């Protein structure tokens, strides 16, 4: 009975009043907390990313509960269970299995940063019908026909597809000219290869009217970037796509560009992925060399989040907010919004609420570019890709313009 009342309280304005009248009964029946979970690597090589996620989610939990909990559940508090995904898929899957076994009343969860961990974890959560949110990029996550997985980031393939056109738009809107030539420096590991394949072999560059005039592939680790960069110097492409997966390689290329007088935007640099905006990269490479580097990313601090960014920096002592902590904040907010809509601490209803969701305002929607709306596969529709640029030691969102915190710099090639 209480369930009926609470659901109506969300859907109808009139029912809100009835809900308010019924509140004492609801408090008695439902004020016990509602459990969600985060599984992320908190030990091993990816521990830092797990910690960032947790920093964000700790803030979200405080905001949700201090703001009165889940109102449709009579102000029920949200409770989060953290589990360590460790450093192997086995550990990640065990963590998920343990959560599912120990916490039969979980209504949702999110994680686990690394795509392979997310794949393993969702094998368990899918079978347990627990709605699961993730920021992981891999297309495989939402290609398996799962019903309870929701991917808030554009997939790797979508990012590869959107990065260059968006970069061209950015260039045109800044300089009024469209770049005509491109150089690519990449290593031969899996994700750069997957990123570049549709561009080079699938005719992606032709479609964009770009001529590939430098095409350099190396096997990491790079020992000397001179041969790569000297080709760039002599060919002078309108911009350079840099796809490296190890920080030392990235550093070598940037240093060499600097040495050859091509840095600081002489040749605009474009890349992809959140690691290009990490504080670790700043520590390794330094603010000076990074200045001007543009990278596309699934999610990055945007306009409207200024207060939150300041609060985050103050609370955690981090230099700046990144994708991981932002999603760590956003995912509990999505679950809270879904619970609010579902009106019942029930995983099936929460999953339904996420499927029907179309959020454009509120704390959850503010955390992600584009509306929060998922298609049948569990992917978000019509999501713009974000471009951030290193400016004075901070990677700031510069494109799309309506989300930007700063103006992009795209120096026209001399």
């Amino acid at each position: 009975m209480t369930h009926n009342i609470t659901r109506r309280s969300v859907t109808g304005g009139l029912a809100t009043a009835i809900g308010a009248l019924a509140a004492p009964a609801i408090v008695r029946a439902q004020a016990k907390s509602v459990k969600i979970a985060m599984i992320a690597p908190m030990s091993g090589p990816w521990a830092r990313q797990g910690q960032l996620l947790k920093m964000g989610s700790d803030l979200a939990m405080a905001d949700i509960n201090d703001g009165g909990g889940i109102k449709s559940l009579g102000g029920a508090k949200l409770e989060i269970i953290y589990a360590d995904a460790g450093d192997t898929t086995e550990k990640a899957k065990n963590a998920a299995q343990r959560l599912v076994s120990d916490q039969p009343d979980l209504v949702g969860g999110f994680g686990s940063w690394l795509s392979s961990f997310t794949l393993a974890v969702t094998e368990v959560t899918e079978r347990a019908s627990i709605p699961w949110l993730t920021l992981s990029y891999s297309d495989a996550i939402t290609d398996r026909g799962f019903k309870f997985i929701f991917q808030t980031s554009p997939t790797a393939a979508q990012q590869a597809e959107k990065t260059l056109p968006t970069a061209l738009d950015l260039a045109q809107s800044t300089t009024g000219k469209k770049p005509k030539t491109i150089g690519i420096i990449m290593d031969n590991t899996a994700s750069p290869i997957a990123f570049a394949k549709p561009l080079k072999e699938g005719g992606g560059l032709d479609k964009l009217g770009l001529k590939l005039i430098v095409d350099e592939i190396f096997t990491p680790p790079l020992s000397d970037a001179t041969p790569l960069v000297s080709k760039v110097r002599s060919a002078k492409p309108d911009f350079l796509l840099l796809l490296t997966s190890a920080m030392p390689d990235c550093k070598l290329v940037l240093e060499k560009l600097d040495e050859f007088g091509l840095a600081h935007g002489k040749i605009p640099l474009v890349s992809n992925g959140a690691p290009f905006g990490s504080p670790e990269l700043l520590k390794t490479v330094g603010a000076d060399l990074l200045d001007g580097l543009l990278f596309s990313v699934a999610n990055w601090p945007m306009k409207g989040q200024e207060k939150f960014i300041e609060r985050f920096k103050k609370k955690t002592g981090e230099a700046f907010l990144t994708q991981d902590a932002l999603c760590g904040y956003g995912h509990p907010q999505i679950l809270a919004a879904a619970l609010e809509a579902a009106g019942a601490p029930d995983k099936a209803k929460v999953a339904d609420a996420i499927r029907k969701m179309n959020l454009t305002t509120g704390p959850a929607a503010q955390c992600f570019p584009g509306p929060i709306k998922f298609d049948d596969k569990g992917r978000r529709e019509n999501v713009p890709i974000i471009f951030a640029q290193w400016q004075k030691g901070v990677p700031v969102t510069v494109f799309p313009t309506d989300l930007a915190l700063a103006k992009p710099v795209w120096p026209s090639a001399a």
Partner: protein
Amino acid sequence: MRTRAEANRQRWAIAGVAIAVLLLSLVLQSAYFEQVLAEVLLWAVLSLGWNILCGYGGYSSFGHAVFWGLGAYTVGLAMIDLNLTPWVSIPFCAVVGAVAGALIGYPTFRLRGHYFGLAMLAYPLAMLPIFNWLGYQELALPMKRGEAAIAYMQFDDPRIYVVLALALMVGALAISLWVENSRFGMALTAIKQNEPAAEAAGIDTWKWKMLALMLSGAMSSVAGGLYAVLLLVLTPDTLFGILASAQALILALFGGVGSLWGPVIGAFVLVPLAEGLNAQLGNVLPGIQGVVYGVAIIAIILLAPEGVYWRVLDRLGRGKKPAPRGETVPAVPAAPVIALPHPREAAGGDLLVLKNVGIAFGGLRALDQIDLAVPEGSLYGIIGPNGAGKTTLFNVINGFLTPGSGSITFDGEAITGMRPSRVCRRGIGRTFQVVRSFSRMSVLENVIVGAYVGAPDDTAARNMALAALDRVGLSARADAIAGGLTTRELRLMELARALAPNPRLMLLDETLAGLGHDDLDGILGAIRQLRADGITVLIIEHTMQAMVNLVDHFTVLDHGRLIAGGKPHDVVRDPRVIEAYLGKKWVERVAATAN
């Protein structure tokens, strides 16, 4: 080799453990615990596979993840690309593992000891970039629903995985038990304890090592195949990573290397411990679980360096050597060798012929233009000062070394450059200057290893070994562990080992060295008896006195050349021999006294 009763006891133990695991899986009410239990069983199978080669055969491998990962990817790719059910692909993993074992063993068995172990490390590490490059960095087994789920090994009830994994573990234990109790296990143990001695005793070490690696690989791959079904998501890092290789090794080290139960004990203690620590501490004090795990392993290694299993056995007092055999055998007889019922006829003619044999190590010509003919039925001695090349000569004859030039024929057949085990099979036995025993095996087992060459089956080998022990008068010590024997007993045991397959030619390398006067007589008697039994004996010595009275033909080797030969009493007067032994001054003095 265990007795039949012991093997039966082990079979019951395996059945008992299987029932206990089944009961445990019924009691556990959580899908999580069932999953961990299934993982424990699979890691145990991987470690049992590792134990075949590395525990029994003594060849440490730091790279068993290569088999584990190949098995897992076989199942994953078969399902994704061929829509093949794991029910078919998991058994097929045995083939994959065996083939991988053969391909890896072929180049890698050229190395020994730590070099082999480290080279093995390369294989899984090489797989990492290969599988990444192939685009298999994240392989998800497609989810099957409804009827298809069972056909594709995807069960809702996690206990079924436990049952499947348990079946694999019981299978792995049965295979290990069979290996322990067969010629295979005996050969591996011999290889582990002294590979050259095993080869010289006629064990085709190459073949057994390859078979061990193939079996080991097959077992590990099958376990990896089921692991893929359990995990559903395959990544090269998880499967080929250093952690998986280390796991196979650590579990066995912890539980007891080279024992049937060691890997199982290791898996049942360490896997849940690690998982429990992850679960309890992973999100509280990230990283501390690894520290606790490491400390636990260090503590165990300090307290029980050979592993829990052996430590417990020692505590229970069952690991001690068994009591001596029931029948009492009189103390060692003076001339212990009992004559064969039908001594071989001395056929005359030359049994072993060396023509122009030479070998050089760098600039040193260790053997130079050696021509030697050993008549069948003779007792032929070769003497020479230290460093003359005597042992090198034996090593060339029995195949440890391949001569740089010349030819060696045995009974008319060329044996130049043949592997020692083949040479042994032709009927040439040998002993070593420094006894090469299998020190942790019993005397009888030592001799059985030698008997295999001439025995059609295990029972025959045992009987031949007992007969050989009888012949050298060592029956009373048959059950003693070789490591505890006196020098004289060791010499006799080595003699029995070489004698067991009834060779036609015996190469005795300084058999008399380091023996006291009383012991000497016993051994000399034994050697004479060999000849009386029709066995041709070629013996090396550097002490001339004993030899002069023993042999009927004598050759002197100096600086890699044969400098004199003939009847013993003639040879000792040869000036070149005196010079070689005593120096030029003595030649003159002898010449003076002769005049």
